[in-house]
């Protein structure tokens, strides 16, 4: 009888980022794939308040990101959030579903999206080349988020801090095409993306 294999996870960008030169802190565009738990969180009718209470978090209204501890919620639709959990185990989404039972429906998306972190001096300019969004600090800062399109690929993106650091969630199947866009666009900016630790 064949040996039972233990399933090893493989990030959507693993084989894409592997050959990319590692980043030092000064590099203007540092890219890494995040290993986080993701879920779509959808409030049941009239249960938004109960959901906030269950999570102990002020639910963002509109396209904003709110973080509390290891959990962040990004508004991606009316009463719909993308939930990002740091240090998530494989069962985290069902734990979440239990926590918010009778208040929200939960769909595990930990594999559905690949989350790419972009940081460094050129990150803002790079994203502005792709998304038709005004990333000027006066209008888009830490906590801002958007559901939009980059190079014909649907993305959810948000800003983490003023470094600036951004994260972009895209359907994992688009990883290769998205990377092509990053490479081509950064070449047009005269820079080269470097791989940071996820």
């Amino acid at each position, binding site marked *: 009888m064949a040996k039972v294999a233990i399933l090893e996870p493989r990030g959507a960008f693993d084989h894409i980022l592997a050959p990319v030169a590692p980043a030092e802190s000064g590099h203007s565009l540092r890219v890494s794939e995040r290993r986080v738990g993701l879920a779509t969180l959808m409030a049941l009718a009239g249960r938004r308040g109960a959901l906030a209470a269950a999570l102990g978090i002020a639910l963002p209204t509109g396209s904003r990101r709110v973080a509390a501890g290891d959990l962040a919620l990004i508004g991606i639709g009316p009463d719909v959030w993308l939930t990002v959990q740091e240090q998530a185990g494989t069962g985290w989404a069902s734990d979440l579903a239990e926590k918010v039972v009778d208040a929200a429906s939960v769909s*595990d998306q930990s594999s*559905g999206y690949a989350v790419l972190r972009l940081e460094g001096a050129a990150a803002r300019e790079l994203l502005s080349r792709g998304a038709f969004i005004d990333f000027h600090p006066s209008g888009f800062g830490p906590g801002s988020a958007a559901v939009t399109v980059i190079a014909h690929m649907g993305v959810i993106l948000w800003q983490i801090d003023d470094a600036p650091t951004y994260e972009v969630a895209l359907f994992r199947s688009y990883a290769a095409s998205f990377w092509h866009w990053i490479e081509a666009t950064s070449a047009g900016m005269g820079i080269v993306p470097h791989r940071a630790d996820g």
Partner: protein
Amino acid sequence: MSRLDTGGAIDRGRPLRFRFDGRDYGGFEGDTLASALVANDVKIVGRSFKYHRPRGLLTTGSEEPNGLVTLRSGARAEPNTRATTVQLFNGLEALSQNRWPSLGFDLMAVNGLLAPIFVAGFYYKTFMWPTAFWEKLYEPLIRRAAGLGRLSMRPDPDSYDKAHGFCDLLIVGGGPAGLVAALAAGRAGARVMLVEEDWLLGGRLLGERHEIGGVSGAEWARATAAELATLSNVTVLTRTTLFGAYDGQTYSAVERVTDHLAEPAPGEPRQRLWKIVAKRTILATGAIERPLVFGGNDRPGVMTASAIGTYINRFAAAPGERVAIFTTTDSGWTTVDDLRAAGVTVAAVIDARDEPPAAATERARKAGTRVFAGAMVTDAFGKTLKSIDIHEAGRRRTQINVDVLGMAGGWNPAIGLGCNLGNRPVWSDLIHSFILETPPPGMALAGAAAGHFSLGEAVRDGARAARDAIPAASPDVPYTSDDPVGLAPLWHIPGKTKAFVDFQHDVTDQDIALAAREGFKSVEHLKRYTTLGMATDQGKTSQVNGHALLAKSVGKAIAEAGPVLSRPPYLPVAIGALAGHHREEHFRPVRLTAGHVWAVEQGATFVDTGQWKRAQWFAKEGEADWLETVSREALGVRTSVGICDVSTLGKIDVLGPDAGALLDRLYINTFSTLGVGKARYGVMLREDGFVMDDGTTTRLGEHRYFVTTTTANAARVMQHIDYCRQVLWPELNVQAVSVTEQWAQYAVAGPKSRALLQRLLSEIDLSNEAFPFMGAAEFLWDGVPTRLFRLSFSGELAYEIAVPATYGDALVRALFEAGRDLDVLPYGTEALGVLRIEKGHAAGNELSGQTTAADLGFERMMSKKKDFIGRVMAERPGLVDPTRPALIGIRPVDGKSRLGGGAHLLPLGAAATAKNDQGYVTSVAHSPSLGHWIGLALLKNGRDRIGERMRAVDLLRDNDVEVEIVDPVFIDPEGARLRG
């Protein structure tokens, strides 16, 4: 050499070499190709479109109709490039266009003799008969004789980038008005974008000798540009053409990033397409000088007066040695002063007005220039200009020898962008041209674009526009030197020879008169009948003159004749710039499944299904063709076990207390009664009663359903579900989200599938009793959330196993490892198709949007106990007609002929005509299990015709096979295998 010894914004310390039509020339840094040609005494730069007349430069700007060249060579060759906007670089190569064999001697110039044929509307008149001659003879001939440059027909080696801009104030045009506005708004802290097509800021200031702010115009522009560069809130885009205005205060522009270099550095884009959103916009695009319409006005050497001034002042290049100026404006006299200051002989000034400006006249006469007042140039002579005829009221004609004639016919505000959204310009008797009084939302015009032609007025207007747009702005209004703008328009000078209105399309005054006589009296009709203004320059120098002539011909005022609007792009834009990085294999994004790398390793051939790449088959060494491969794969599934990546199927979580209720309304069958841990096949209709999609839905919990769709309809079904729950039935407490990408899912199909999976899933009882057909379970496997479904598309004992896509690559490798001694094999979409055709399952070919549930054999699935989308419309007489084409199977009577999809079914002996058509073949496959071709077809009254023989005729592929109508299920009709 006509290069002046001093002056100009060229750098004499940086000489450049370039080639034009195979000859070497020299220029300087700071030249355009046009100015370098002027400095080298190159007078003829092209041949005209229709008559192949020699043409010289008319202007110095992007409105240039004549100086079109093919820039660069080989794959980088770019036809129809305006020499006036090409910044000279070392090694530049350019070729003139539309001449054969050479510019100096063009055989096609004989067209000029045939001018009576090429009148307005000649396309519609001359080549009417016989019809067949048009495509084969007339059109190729005309295309060869007429037209502009030719494409290289080779792939573009350059790359094109995209960018987005947002600002409080967008200023289009970096001339005096735009610069005053930009500086004021920038100093006030507003986010400003300034877009200028030239590589230098300054606009007219660079080409004139005016003073502004106590210094020369060029110096003031340099200082202003330097200050703007220090303001972090101001973005200045030079070499950038704003070419379109759109709804929502959105604009598009193209930045020529490296067009001024011989070739871009690696990775560097050639051009960048900008999409800009501006809260406010100031259109400070200046004005374009009008030519005058007289005989021979297209001779090389005849150009606008302002062009002469600019060639001299900015480029230190004198277009000729003996110049005359034909003017209707004070601005023409400025050029006279410019010429004199540069030491160029001004032989004559012909002012159509009876009283030319006194001081300027005095200065000219003193310098020996003959001044003709109340006079007109009636004709110009020479292949390149040699002499002109001057007509004075009540006197004899005077002929004067000159090699350059400047035309100062007045100025047209450059308002094209302001009209992109349908805003109509109105006639102004004050400036004798069209102005835009009501620009689109957020836009204001300033300076010459608003009809404020004098420099002082333009500067003050730029300041006003800045204050209006940015209330915090307090503009400096610099002092300017005197700039008189008196004008008396003169629209037409009658004469005997051809007088051109549209230089690029060879439209003459006679063409316009003829069009008017033939009834084309609206400007929109005139445009299309004569092609006036329809060339690559969009009539920038010709439109207003054309309208004036039309108005004259039909006895109307120009104000009544009205303007035509202009559409984007304001200037031609390379398609490559619009495509950006989306070209070749990147023309659209690609979606790869988690098992893609594994499939590549297995030597898969991939097929595009929408954006997805799916493995089509996995060829093995020694296999002759795809059919052999696919037959092996299909047979392998029927005899041992095969694995197919089905991750691309649409997957949707439908959740919440009313999830079952929603699904009951979406599908023709019922899901609210489905037990937890069970799957059910479902069919959904469109509102019009035809089948929309099918797939299995599994109930994973009381309030949790997992819906699958076909790969092709995944997005559409998701939209449909969202529309239904958000718009049609918001009262339902149901949530839904696509989880297509979350799960990597593999079909494990074949008699040995249970054995294979049991090896991996030792803790799950896969026996028929514990896990029957259409059963489902979710569990943690090694800590990984896993889903198992007993579904079968192939008709064999089969499962689908799903894990989060992160584990998809590992899962497929584990499956093959576990099945190594079970003859496990991968199969692709083609074998999948064979297996489903053998089982008579409908797929994309049958779910064509033209089939009903009953057509496909699902009539008994349509619930009578509930309402669902499409139920009412599905009862329309045409949809319940018992003779409708129904799904049946076919097989060749001879047992060996090949069947073809798309063939039509005809009674034996009937002629292959549409009248006898009774159905068509939707899917075919070679069944390795049966050893012959089989097919599915939609046949009128099909189910009652089992056993009948017919012809399957495909006239396109020349195929005609006698077939037997059979049940669509070819293999295991009782379903013993899949339940085994």
